[in-house]
């Protein structure tokens, strides 16, 4: 068996990737193959597009890509998926859109099933849980403060009005609690806004499209972007690097553009549309009023906008990837300027 002493596992050890057909998952699988790992099990929903793995396998002779379809809500599927896996990258998650139960079930219940299955086999050396920047509260941080891994997560995520945030906070809590009690080594990664070809649309951190008008809310804020390949590299290193068990890593790139710069480039390179800049004081007031009205009307308008969300998404904040660089020796493979160029090209093609 080949073993690279730099990494936690050998190159023939089995790696399980859940959510393998997703936007990040595909890139992660490709990155692991490029690093010489030859034994991958890709877990995907039956309805996922699995064709791309055939091409990946052809490009990496000797590599074994075992595509397993199933549902993480099924304990039996989890048990068979995790058999013999030395390293588990758990990317699968439920966005849930507006449904809290859907997001929760497809994030927390699935994670519980997976962790229990891993525990029954007892052979995994690390569990990598992919979370999100969405878990950060940012309520107590003063404006322009650096947001790093030590910042608090939402203490009352159910009040954010965002199913994804609620599910991710509870998922993280479950992972930490379970792994500490069971002794399973774990790492949590929190990507910022992942972008790249294949992902259309503009992150809410720049603004929102509503009633036929794009409201630009970010202004001069930095946008915590991470290019898909850089993000996948960071996730891979979080799983493979020795001595980082129990740690949390934020994933953002260098040279982050401001919201205004991003929007200008998007309009120039992808398509023109009308946008209206909303100053921070005004957007904060609007979110507060919306929150008040939602409570007063007993949910006639759902609390989709509120002060918690404003603080998490639109407060002026700085970001760092220092821990990623110092602990995992991560270096962004694709510079932001190049990443944006590729992203805009992908957006143009999808709009064409």
């Amino acid at each position, binding site marked *: 068996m080949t073993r690279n002493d730099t990494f936690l596992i050998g190159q023939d050890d089995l790696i399980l990737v859940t959510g393998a057909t997703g936007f990040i998952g595909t890139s992660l699988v490709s990155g692991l193959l490029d690093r010489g790992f030859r034994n991958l099990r890709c877990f995907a*929903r*039956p*309805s*996922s597009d699995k064709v791309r793995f055939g091409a990946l396998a052809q490009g990496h002779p000797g590599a074994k890509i075992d595509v397993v*379809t199933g*549902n993480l809500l099924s304990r039996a599927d989890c048990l068979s998926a995790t058999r013999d896996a030395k390293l588990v990258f758990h990317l699968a998650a439920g966005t849930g859109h507006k*449904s*809290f*139960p*859907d997001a*929760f*079930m497809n994030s*927390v*219940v699935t994670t*519980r099933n997976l962790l229990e299955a891993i525990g029954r086999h007892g052979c995994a050396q690390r569990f990598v849980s992919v979370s999100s920047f969405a878990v950060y509260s940012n309520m107590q941080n003063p404006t322009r403060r650096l947001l790093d891994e030590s910042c608090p997560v939402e203490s009352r995520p*159910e009040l954010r009005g965002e199913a994804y945030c*609620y599910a991710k906070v*509870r998922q993280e809590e479950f992972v930490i609690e379970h792994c500490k009690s069971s002794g399973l080594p774990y790492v949590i990664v929190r990507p910022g806004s992942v972008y790249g070809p294949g992902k259309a649309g503009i992150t809410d951190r720049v603004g929102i499209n509503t009633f036929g008008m794009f409201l630009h809310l970010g202004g001069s804020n930095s946008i915590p972007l991470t290019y898909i390949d850089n993000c996948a590299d960071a996730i891979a290193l979080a799983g493979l690097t020795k001595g980082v068990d129990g740690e949390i890593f934020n994933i953002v790139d260098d040279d982050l553009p401001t919201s205004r710069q991003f929007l200008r480039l998007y309009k120039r390179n992808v398509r023109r549309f009308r946008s209206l800049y909303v100053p921070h004081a005004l957007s904060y007031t609007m979110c507060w009023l919306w929150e008040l009205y939602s409570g*007063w*009307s*007993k*949910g*006639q308008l759902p609390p989709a906008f509120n002060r918690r969300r404003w603080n998490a998404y639109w407060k002026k904040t700085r970001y760092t990837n220092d821990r990623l660089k110092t602990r995992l020796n991560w270096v962004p493979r694709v510079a932001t300027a190049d990443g944006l160029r590729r992203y805009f090209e992908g957006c143009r093609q999808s709009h064409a």
Partner: protein
Amino acid sequence: MLKIAIVGCGKIADDHAAAIQRIPDCEIIAVCDREPLMARQLMERFRIARHFTDMAALLDEARPDVVHITTPPASHFDLAKLCLEHGCHVYVEKPFTLFHHEAEKLVALAEKAGRKITVGHDAQFGHAARRMRALVASGYLGEVPVHMESYYSYELGQGYARALLGDADHWVRRLPGQLLHNLISHGIARIAEFLTTDSPEVIAYGFTSSFLSGIGETELIDELRVIISDKRTTAFFTFSTQMRPAIQQLRLYGSRNGLVLDTDQEILLKLRGGRFTSYAEKFVPPVLMARQYLSNALTNLGTFMARDFHMKSGMKYLIESFYRSIVNGTEPPIPYREILLTSWIMEAIFAQVQGPSARNHKRMPEPLLAAGSRVRQV
């Protein structure tokens, strides 16, 4: 103070919990789900005191007055029966049961136990639907409707379609009426409300849309056309996933006037039975119709300003009416006859369109026609 419990903590349970918490003199005291994490998340988000994973334990320990059953349809019958046997009143989400005979048993059991039961046909209790019911009761249509048209559209998104397509064991596939079983209750119930006999003739034609067949689906039927007829009233029912606009409408035509109800837009339009003289028929009705649209818009705005225009306002009204019937000992908001007739018509439709040998329109099989006579005896 009515003590309420919810069993099944999925997506629709959120709507129930939110609606119940807007109703005075009741409190959700417990929730239950076989999956403890799901029970806990509902309890946490709605600040409910207790959660259970075992229904019998909930009934014994929390002792609710009313139980809302919001689980997948396959469990409706057993759970509702258990609740009735424990002396609870029961609100069952749609579809009421998988089979008509189960619906009959539940209604009979509720009557025997002196408890009330209802089904979540909340779309019949929106603001416009209630205005329509009042107009019909006032005799606006004439006598019973001569003809009805019920449209129930459902935009089948790529995500949902692919999830169904990729999962041969999806719970929707295991329903007797598959996708239709989960979706057509509201549209059928609207017709059942105005039918005068309990065993109408049902002729159904169902097929797989080109959209679904285009992505490899061969079994699921997602387009349905039905003719329903009793001795005095006929009805067309259209269910479609592909028709645009995706409307949810009921059109009632009486011997004097007609009505159009749009439950999506919360609009009720009166259709005059009479005609204007000569060219006036070309100019006056459009103006009158414009005035009606404006009136509907203003009514909706007023209801919104009064904080009574929630997306699921019909559900809140139905639940509140059901609770009132329990407290006051009056008839429940949905007559049992209507619940049974809806389940009977749905079963008749599925018998004709489901399965490889029943893709084209067929008359209802004799056993089901016979079942109709049983309905009348209830």
